């Protein structure tokens, strides 16, 4: 375990993201004497007001990361900078996204080892399991990552997870690494695919399927990243609360409608919706048919049963309006 007083400098990659900023705030409170360095390709945003945080806008390239690690001594590194495929909307960035998520992750991990970082936290996602017709309820950490078999869009996400996992086990004696695969993170500060889908009235909703979903509040997720990772030993962890709601119920709680159509039309309508700028990736369509619920027992073993503070339905309610 890394002692509190040993943490002097923390690196957060992807600090412009809502979850990263929440995490930074919590880290600043947890380690008041530590310096936090937040990097991103994007600007800092309006709300990045964290004590002891230095924001550096960098290009995600080998040279900029090497310079970053050479000029700082990091005790904790948070890799929260996975570029989501919503970026596909911006033409020409697809290759860069894949390059950063896959090759960039490998580089960051190697630099952590080279510059003797004490602990690395990688934020992956439960999307890596894929929404497959024979998914069991619940999917464990050891289950195969099948998303890339079906969705090319998620290939880089799966590859990033695999690279991190292999690297973690290979270097488990030298560096403590935690890989988190959270369920759908929701909250007013998060702007991921599922948040956009849940809040939008102009998205297709299946009338003949209604799978169960797990949602984690952004604040709970930030707590896992700060308080939680302190208690977790090296390993891969699914992160999800015990609660679950169906997709229709979730939209109902939020108060967004969407238009109900049979599932066989969903893919085509999602394609039309995409053209109007309302992002609905192809892979999301299957998540609206087959449940992809994850098993949280490994995480609960270390964090306890009552770690999460937020009720899923109340969290969804906060998204309304």
């Amino acid at each position: 375990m890394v002692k509190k007083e040993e943490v002097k400098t923390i690196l957060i990659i992807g600090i412009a993201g809502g979850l990263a900023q929440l995490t930074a705030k919590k880290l600043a409170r947890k380690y008041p004497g530590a310096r936090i360095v937040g990097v991103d390709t994007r600007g800092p945003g309006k709300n990045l007001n964290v004590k002891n945080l230095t924001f550096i806008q960098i290009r995600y390239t080998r040279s900029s990361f090497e310079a970053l690690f050479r000029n700082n001594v990091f005790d904790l590194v948070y890799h929260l900078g996975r570029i989501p495929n919503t970026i596909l909307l911006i033409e020409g960035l697809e290759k860069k996204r894949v390059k950063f998520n896959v090759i960039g992750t490998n580089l960051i991990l190697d630099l952590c080892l080279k510059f003797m970082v004490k602990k690395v936290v990688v934020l992956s996602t439960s999307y890596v399991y894929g929404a497959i017709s024979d998914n069991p309820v619940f999917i464990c950490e050891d289950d195969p990552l099948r998303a890339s078999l079906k969705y090319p869009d998620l290939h880089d996400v799966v590859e990033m997870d695999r690279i991190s996992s292999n690297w973690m086990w290979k270097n488990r004696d030298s560096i403590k690494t935690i890989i988190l695969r959270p369920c759908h993170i929701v909250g007013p500060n998060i702007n991921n695919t599922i948040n956009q889908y849940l809040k939008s009235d102009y998205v297709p909703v299946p009338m003949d399927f209604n799978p169960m979903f797990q949602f984690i509040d952004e604040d709970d997720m930030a707590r896992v990243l700060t308080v939680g990772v302190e208690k977790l030993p090296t390993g891969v962890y699914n992160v999800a609360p015990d609660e679950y709601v169906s997709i229709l119920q979730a939209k109902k709680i939020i108060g967004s409608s969407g238009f109900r159509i049979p599932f066989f039309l969903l893919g085509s309508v999602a394609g039309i919706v995409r053209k109007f700028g309302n992002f609905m990736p192809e892979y999301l369509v299957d998540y609206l048919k087959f449940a992809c619920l994850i098993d949280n027992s490994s995480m609960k073993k270390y964090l306890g049963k009552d770690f999460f503070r937020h009720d899923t339905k109340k969290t969804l309610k906060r998204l309304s309006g």
Partner: protein
Amino acid sequence: MLNEFIKGIKYFKMTTADEKKISSVIRNLKKRYEDNSDPWGLDLGFIEKFYHIMFPLYRKYFQVKVHGKSNVGQKQYMVVSNHSGQIAVDGLLISMAFALEMRNPRMLRAMVERFVSAMPFIGDMMSRYGSVLGERKNCEWLLKRDESVLIFPEGIKGVAKDTKDFYKLKPFTKGFFRLALAHDVDILPVAVVGAEEFYPYVKHFRSLAKLMKLPIFPVTPLFPFLGPLGLLPMPSPVDIYIGKPYTIPKKLSHNAIDSLVDNHIKNIRTDIKSMLKEGLSKRRTSPLFDKLGIDVKRSL
């Protein structure tokens, strides 16, 4: 004609006693399922509405009779049954019997084929009714949660029989017994008599099913000629026989070699076979079958 139609509607109307029974069962089930649902999609609100439609049909259309209720204790079981009737109405009737006819109502979690879960509307309705994709891990999770599961070890081959094969048990798969061993859950053998006659004459076109990428393609005098209407089951009276619980051997490992497991599976199969034999000898018939000259007194 109109009068007869109204009479028919009234015949299938819920009685006050039925309504009270359903309310009491749902109240009981609510204690078990927080928030009226579970991760597999069970929806008690839906089940309550569904029972309001189905219970009169269960009693008056299918005239279900349950034998051997005293064999069911207040505990978790793996219910293992023969499969019949082309569209798996037997599973629905067994689960209704365990929810509505037992002193301690339980929702049996029927393990269903993958193609059923992926069917529009039907997959969703089955999940809401408590059915679960027949995948080993799902079954394990359910057993860990003290749920009772309903398994048809004949699989799809059991439900899709030609008329000449009615009530002839297909070979049982072994997975269910190993799961019962691993979780130390007693097996309750069940035999359903009457469901095969939902479609008295059936011929399966297996190569056509393969060509159309369907799991089965039954042809009956009414299906596919009348479209979905042809799928409506005939009013064949159904008898559900519940056998004595098959106690799981304590010393046998769930990883034991096949030959050790085979004997037990054979015993369970024999139990079901003898219940089927007994059921067929006491087979009830319906006035409609008599009129149509359909002989339901078939032998094993």
